[in-house]
């Protein structure tokens, strides 16, 4: 049976209100057998220090990533993961996490690669739930395995690869959601912390910089529709005819922006380039833009 949406008036403004729930809606649906709550955090220990009662853990590194290739789990791996978490194809998944739902949005995006029909984000994430004094537990649920079909992973519709981005240059908007320092190329290497291993600094030519965090209020919830429109539609000039690609460093922050553009603003055809700067800044002979350095076409013969 499908689970009804959250009728909250703030959510109702968004293009796809069925993709979000409020903390109060979730509090009333914790015992709903058709709902599975999943926590996905940047800090891998946070779930174990206390989580929403009944919530399972979805770890981006250990669960969602392939452990050998730089890729996501394959269809068999995804089906097995979902099954172990007690999630069926008809289950409503509500994802939440730390750091403004950074990783929660990433987990939701990965579930969307497999076309999971009903996956929602908790508006405000872990922070808002805790700030409102709502309960946490350290009890880890042991769900009965569910039947989850092996479904193909669609890598075309919402995912972009390096070659897609190269072909996209000059054809449509590119949104770089990293911090201004990363975008301008000032940040290349901090002492003892080579930043996630990129050899070159700067950004992909034609990209505009809108740090992902601008879409969130201080309490972790998303900004209102009007505020989001002011940022992405007015300031950035994105229209529904554009085919936007968003990227960051490893694709998790840009999942957050992908969610905002796709589900809150209703922009069709937005893709997340999960290779992001970690791939681009290491790739040979791709163009890079940095203030004061004109973008050059590839040198050499046989380009």
């Amino acid at each position, binding site marked *: 049976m499908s689970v009804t949406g959250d009728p909250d008036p703030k959510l109702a403004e968004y293009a796809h209100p069925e993709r979000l729930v409020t903390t109060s809606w979730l509090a009333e649906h914790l015992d709903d057998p058709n709902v599975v709550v999943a926590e996905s955090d940047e800090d891998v220990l946070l779930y*174990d220090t206390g989580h929403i009662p009944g919530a399972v853990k979805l770890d981006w*590194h250990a669960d969602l990533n392939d452990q050998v290739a730089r890729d996501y789990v394959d269809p068999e791996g995804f089906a097995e993961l979902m099954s172990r978490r007690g999630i069926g194809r008809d289950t409503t998944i509500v994802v939440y996490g730390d750091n403004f739902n950074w990783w929660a949005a990433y987990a939701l995006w990965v579930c969307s690669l497999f076309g999971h029909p009903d996956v929602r984000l908790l508006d405000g994430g872990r922070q808002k739930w805790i700030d409102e004094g709502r309960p946490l537990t350290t009890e880890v649920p042991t769900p009965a395995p569910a039947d989850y079909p092996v479904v193909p992973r669609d890598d075309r519709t919402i995912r972009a690869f390096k070659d897609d981005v190269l072909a996209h240059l000059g054809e449509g908007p590119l949104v770089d959601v990293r911090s201004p320092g990363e975008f301008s190329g000032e940040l290349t290497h901090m002492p003892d*912390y080579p930043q996630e291993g990129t050899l070159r600094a700067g950004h992909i030519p034609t990209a505009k910089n809108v740090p992902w965090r601008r879409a969130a209020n201080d309490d972790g919830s998303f900004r209102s529709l009007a505020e989001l429109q002011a940022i992405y539609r007015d300031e950035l000039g994105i229209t529904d005819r554009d085919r936007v690609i968003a990227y960051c460093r490893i694709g998790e922050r840009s999942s957050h922006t992908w969610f905002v553009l796709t589900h809150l603003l209703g922009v069709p055809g937005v893709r997340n380039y999960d290779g992001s700067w970690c791939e681009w800044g290491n790739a040979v002979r791709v163009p890079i833009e940095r203030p004061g350095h004109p973008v050059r076409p590839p040198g050499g013969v046989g380009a």
Partner: protein
Amino acid sequence: MIPAPLAEIVEDFAASPREMRLQMLLGYAQGLPDLPDRYADQDALERVQECQTPFFLAVEIDDDRRVSLFFDAPPEAPTTRGYAGILAEGLDGATVDEVLATPPDFFTGMGLAELISPLRLRGMSAILAHIKRRVVELTAG
């Protein structure tokens, strides 16, 4: 050379099943000692800039050239607290030379890489490097 108490922690992790290792790290996070009163004012502590979460560290060296370490990190950053807890237990009381000789990749054998992404795991080397830098500064001249 990894100082003996730290080497023991590395071995404990290595010998434990995968599911246990995160629980052990959580144990170190929860067991991180509170700061002594003299560091109650956190301005007295140094902020480790490399860490994404606020993290504070103070180093003291006594007349026998033994190192004492003091850490603080918020409860919402349990992994960082866990790293600090491991280094607090593994290096506190070691000599200056022992601390400086600790290999930057001492944690490779702990089996954490399959649980924590390499990018985040690097936080451990960042903290160790910072400790070493403070030790060098304090013993210079």
